[in-house]
């Protein structure tokens, strides 16, 4: 059923984004609202690499990760000077700046025209053109990202992140250079978003700046918060719910223009209700204090 496969692919792309962001927000407690910027860098790296430089898909994924790592390192250094809501606001700023660059750097991103005709990935001669095969690739990449996230979460590093979330200053006194940890997880999370971006570009075969706006970052944050901060399985539930919501509304038979606004109302209302009654999210472990 190509429609179900299409939804599954979108689910895995957003699950990768959610897992990356959960490491930053759920584990380290850094409210970053600029994840879509790194998602965009990955997408544009792949689009430009495939279209102009004839690089293979997997090479473009690595290129995307490298560029995103550098950009997120710089962004992370600036952001590490801020706390809580100032951090969130400054991260709003990075997303807006990145979006303006995607929109106005015409020579590379072709601005609002977007980049059409991005080829599907190919490996040793086999191209993932059919959706079923692309779904397999998406599952493999998601598996790798999830395994890495799981590995990080259960390592001493993961435990240090949680301690940072709980009481950063107290942890510092016990010999931890907290800024390095925050920077490291920020870059790792950003790199994961870049992978999702490469997948998205090569799947939809056309990208334009509108998919990497501030609202997209807020949407990914909603996935993580709804699913549950500090729980990777929670992010999967959050992604599944928020990807399915508009599709279910499609079949509920609401008049189409009301349906889209209904989606916004439901997802906004859920954010409010979760904060009031269940800050842990669906399967969360960390209760946002």
């Amino acid at each position: 059923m190509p429609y179900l496969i299409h939804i599954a692919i979108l689910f895995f792309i957003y699950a990768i984004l959610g897992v990356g962001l959960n490491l930053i927000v759920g584990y380290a407690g850094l409210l970053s609202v600029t994840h879509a910027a790194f998602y965009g860098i990955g997408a544009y790296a792949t689009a430009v690499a495939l279209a102009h430089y004839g690089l293979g898909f997997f090479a473009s994924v690595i290129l995307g990760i490298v560029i995103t790592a550098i950009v997120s390192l710089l962004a992370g250094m600036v952001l590490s000077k801020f706390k809580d809501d100032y951090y969130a606001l400054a991260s709003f700023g990075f997303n807006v700046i990145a979006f303006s660059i995607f929109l106005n750097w015409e020579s590379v991103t072709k601005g609002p025209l977007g980049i059409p005709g991005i080829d599907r990935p190919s490996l040793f001669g086999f191209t993932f053109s059919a959706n079923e095969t692309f779904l397999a690739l998406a599952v493999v990449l998601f598996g790798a990202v999830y395994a890495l996230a799981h590995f990080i979460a259960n390592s001493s590093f993961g435990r240090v992140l949680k301690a940072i979330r709980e009481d950063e200053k107290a942890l510092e006194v016990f010999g931890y250079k907290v800024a390095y940890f925050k920077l490291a997880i920020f870059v790792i999370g950003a790199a994961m978003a870049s992978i999702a971006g490469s997948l998205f570009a090569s799947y939809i075969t056309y990208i334009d700046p509108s998919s990497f706006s501030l609202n997209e970052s807020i949407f990914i944050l909603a996935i993580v918060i709804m699913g549950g901060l500090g729980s990777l399985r929670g992010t999967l539930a959050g992604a599944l719910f928020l990807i399915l919501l508009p599709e279910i509304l499609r079949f509920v038979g609401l008049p189409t223009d009301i349906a889209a606004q209904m989606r916004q109302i439901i997802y906004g209302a859920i954010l409010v209700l979760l904060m009031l009654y269940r800050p842990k999210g669906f399967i969360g472990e960390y209760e946002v204090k």
Partner: protein
Amino acid sequence: MDAIRTKELHKHFSGVAAIDGLSVAFEQGKVTGVVGPNGSGKTTLVNVLSGMLPPTAGVMVIGGEREMKGLRASDTAYHGITRTFQEVRLFEQMTVLDNILVVLTERSVWGSLFERHNAGHMKKVETVLTRVGLWEKRSQLAHNLSYGQRKLLEIARVLAMTHSDHIGQDASIFLFDEPFAGLFPEMIKVIVSVIKELKEAGKTVILIEHNMNLIRELCDHLIVMDSGKLLAEGKPDHVLAKREVIEAYLGE
């Protein structure tokens, strides 16, 4: 030989001198009490000595030769200093076990990524938690513990710093900021024995406390502070008998 000494130490908060030219020495291997009425600068002193607050002026000397203007919080442990907090600061939504493990594990980003806690770690955690009687509660979240248990967990965390092989130097200077406040007698006994053991092990203890009986029982030396200055210092019995110390406490 003094483990840590301050010279003309100042700490001003927008005009108010919390510490006003304090020069004191904490002798190696001794328990030194710090007493004084509320707001006399005791906690500020501990915060400066543990790098939580940068001093406005003056110098700190650690181990007799390492002289420094201020101390970065993340370097405190590497100078062998560790502390507890007046209001308990634990990692609330982490288990008791994790609260201790986090102090025993790798301090570098790269190292910690590839480190999993193993039997060696668990043994150290067991000894430390059994010492304060919290081993059975190890899988509880810190914020679910009672007030007394949370105080004991902080003590356990500080004890764990003597087993932390990633710091390259076991903790040698212990700052206790009102560890006994609001505890039941049997918990007080536990902490008293811990402090005595630390002293026998040649560690330096700096104890902020209001309970004069405990001060007399534990301290070899006593420092009395009042509005950021050194009011008096010496043997506990001798110092506590002084008129101006009593006046400072009871107020004119």
